[in-house]
């Protein structure tokens, strides 16, 4: 993610003291060099509430992940209940897609199933009704 120039933050309701010990006792053994991004503390879930991920009953955050562009605009959100973990590959794919669109100043968009290097579309009046000539649902399928 650093190669993509992305700043990552992990946020839970745990205190920064707990983050420190979890990192020292467990995470640093799982990840070589330790976790390469800050772990933030959101006691009481105030930040999680405004992001719509705070679970009042459990007093913790559910798995919400937000991609925010350099202008501070949320471009994507994925929210899962806690029992299923996230897919980093999909996160990377989305970040690359949004970066690609931004780099093209919106001239290119990424169709369904896009992967890096895959075909993009250039929206224009000429493309209306002709997308089928440029792209098919079978192309660049991510789900198998």
């Amino acid at each position, binding site marked *: 993610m650093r190669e993509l120039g992305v700043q990552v933050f992990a946020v839970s309701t745990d205190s920064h003291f707990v983050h420190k010990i979890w990192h020292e006792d467990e995470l640093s053994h799982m990840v070589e060099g330790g976790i390469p991004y800050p772990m933030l503390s959101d006691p009481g879930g105030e930040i999680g509430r*405004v992001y719509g991920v705070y679970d009042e009953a*459990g007093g913790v*955050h559910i798995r919400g992940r937000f991609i925010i562009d350099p202008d*501070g605009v949320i471009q994507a959100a994925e929210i899962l209940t806690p029992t299923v973990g996230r897919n980093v590959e999909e996160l990377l794919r989305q970040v690359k897609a949004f970066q690609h669109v931004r780099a093209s100043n919106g001239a290119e968009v990424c169709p369904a199933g896009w992967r890096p290097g895959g075909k993009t579309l250039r929206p224009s009046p000429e493309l209306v009704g002709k997308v089928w000539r440029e792209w098919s649902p079978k192309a660049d399928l991510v789900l198998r």
Partner: protein
Amino acid sequence: MPEAMSCGKRTPGVGVIAPAARAPETEQIAERRSDVTLARVGHEAPDFRAEGYFQGEFKAYQLSDFRGQWVVLCFYPGDFTFV
């Protein structure tokens, strides 16, 4: 003792940061802002400041300080959990 080390005390200035301009008629809504989901895809991310741990150090981070960069926020239930 640095603020980040004090027991049971909230680090000053952390939490959701309200947008600067607020029209008078929305004041009622503003009072309940932390009960309202403000984050919307396609809109500006709600700003906040939070205490953090990174590579052995405690430091406060404010989201708006990272304008100009892509940011990924990952919320999760808690440390020492299993998934």
